[in-house]
């Protein structure tokens, strides 16, 4: 029987080994489709027999290269994504035959025009509102168009039964993550935010592998049993929900600043966490309708209005007994930055927005900000 620490260790080791597994898959004849965003319907890519992988976008290293073609005052995520591709330093990009992007924000959709010159990039036209029927119809057509493009690129046929199978499988993955996230609603939390983040990162490179999923299930069960048995891994700390822009390696400086100064992160609302996983694809609807409805419902700040994010955050604050909310804003991400005003009004607990980038130069200032924020909670 493995213990919690050894499961974390196994996950920690699996993350840098991800590229090797993808290379092996390619050697075995599998096709890789590169993705950046939570709006990409993995189910369609998998139904086309390919493996959807998240491409590198969270390191400061390739930003300078990205800035050779892109303006400096653009969000670091976009510059990093493009810089990785340009310098061929992302192994996942190296192995992918097609990239799927979406017209989420202005910076991304224009960057994809340049990316297309490095690798065939299929851009899905994402409507910017989830509330009306016309938008859902357009998004459904875009998902169908993606399927046709993949059929052509990969020389396969995407059938309805393939889609249904993959929908059920991806839903199960979402349920596993939901169950895992629910653990942190316990007070005190049974695991730290850094550990929570580790599992999110591990999930990202699980590539639909049943064994990886089983490891997360095992971890959830173990943490739950130990907790019931009286084990308390985390002491009394201020409970923080992290929200805002996509996170990743370079933003762990913010998580550290929170957790080294008396806080503990109980939930990541970001798109690497709860945001894309809290709603399922309806398995009773025809597959394309169900996918359109689910994916367009993701409450990213590129949507207008974006009431669902505010509602979700309000619910999470209650469910996770949060003492405060930290909104991470990447420099030049206008949509999340503007939305901070509404989030602050809605969350009803101490709130702070931190604007940062991928460089580590503000680590000390972040420590002061997060420290003061946690002191403020009393």
């Amino acid at each position, binding site marked *: 029987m493995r213990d919690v620490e050894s499961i974390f260790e196994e996950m920690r080791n699996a993350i840098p080994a991800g590229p090797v597994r993808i290379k092996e898959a390619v050697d075995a004849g599998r096709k890789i489709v590169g993705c950046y965003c939570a709006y990409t319907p993995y189910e369609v890519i998998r139904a086309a027999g390919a493996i959807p992988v998240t491409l590198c976008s969270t390191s400061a290293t390739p930003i300078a290269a990205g800035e050779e073609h892109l303006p400096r005052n653009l969000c670091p995520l976009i510059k990093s994504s493009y810089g990785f591709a340009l310098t061929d330093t992302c192994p996942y990009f190296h192995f992918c035959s097609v990239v799927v992007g979406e017209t989420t924000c202005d910076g991304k959709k224009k960057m994809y025009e340049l990316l297309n010159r490095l690798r065939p990039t299929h851009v899905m036209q994402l409507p910017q509102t989830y509330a009306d029927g016309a938008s859902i119809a357009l998004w459904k057509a875009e998902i169908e168009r993606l399927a046709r493009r993949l059929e052509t690129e990969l020389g396969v046929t995407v059938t309805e039964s393939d889609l249904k199978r993959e929908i059920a499988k991806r839903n199960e993955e979402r349920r596993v993550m939901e169950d895992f996230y629910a653990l942190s609603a316990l007070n005190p939390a049974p695991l730290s935010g850094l550990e929570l983040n580790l599992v999110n990162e591990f999930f990202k490179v699980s590539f639909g592998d049943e064994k990886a999923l089983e490891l997360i299930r095992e971890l959830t069960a173990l943490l739950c049993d130990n907790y019931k048995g009286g084990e308390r891994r985390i002491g009394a700390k201020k409970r923080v929900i992290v929200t805002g822009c996509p996170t990743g390696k370079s933003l762990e400086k913010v998580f550290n600043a929170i957790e080294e100064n008396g806080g503990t992160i109980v939930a990541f609302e970001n798109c690497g966490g709860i945001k894309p996983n809290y709603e399922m694809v309806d398995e009773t609807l025809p597959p394309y309708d169900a996918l359109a409805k689910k994916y367009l419902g993701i409450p990213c700040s590129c949507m207008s209005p974006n009431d669902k994010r505010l509602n979700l955050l309000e619910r999470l604050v209650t469910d996770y007994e949060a003492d405060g909310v930290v909104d991470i804003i990447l420099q030049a991400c206008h949509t999340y930055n503007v939305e901070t005003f509404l989030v602050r009004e809605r969350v009803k607990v101490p709130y702070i927005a931190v*604007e940062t980038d991928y460089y580590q130069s*503000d680590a000390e*200032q972040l420590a*002061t*900000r997060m420290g003061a924020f946690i002191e*403020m909670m*009393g």
Partner: protein
Amino acid sequence: MYTIGVDIGSVAVKVVLLKDGEWLDGLLAPTGWSPKDSGALAISAILGKNGLTRGQVARVTATGYGRNSVECDDRVTEITCHARGAKRLFGSGGVRFVLDIGGQDSKAIALDEKGNVSDFLMNDKCAAGTGRFLQNMAVMLGCELEDFSSLPSDAEPHAISSMCTVFAESEIVGLLSQGVDKQAIMLGILDSVASRAEGMLRRVGFSAIRGVGGVAFTGGASRSRNLAELIEKRLTVPLHTCEKSQYAGALGAAEIGRNR
């Protein structure tokens, strides 16, 4: 009971000694390149000056950017300490906002009715609107930092639109070549700091009505009379400063130590 608060800023170390909560002494020294050494030195200086040993002091509380480098009993961020210090210095008048402009950062703090921090904002990565900005401008104009405190109050500031130190420098080069009066430029520089400070205060909820009790102005830049006047003009409420304003962080730290 003796308590010490030490505020290790980017430019100066401030140390305050309290006896049973009453102000006994305060010292100020340059931080230099080693916050660890200058912090320790300031603590031993104030001890020596008052004939005390470290063992006689119940708690030493450190704050400021160098708080993690010095040996102490507690570490508290400068936000909390400045709020506490400002409450102590100016609290009787119902002060609900604190503006602190130090060497490398500036902050606006909102207080609740009990004087606890309810919201705050710090300048981001750059030094715009801080003491460092004024220092660079002084070098540019061939004057001393102190000269920013002795300008005629009735002179009209010349508008400086750049907040960034580098851009402001080139803007000033242009103004000097046009023959704009140096004092008007100096006031313009201060007014650009004042405008930034006003913006930060408004973002944490300041308005003339909510701030009717006045705003406490702390940190090294609060020593500039001209800057205080310009900020006050913008806020239209009283801006409180006193000779101990620069010690607000250290005083707050010493107070917090007393209550631990």
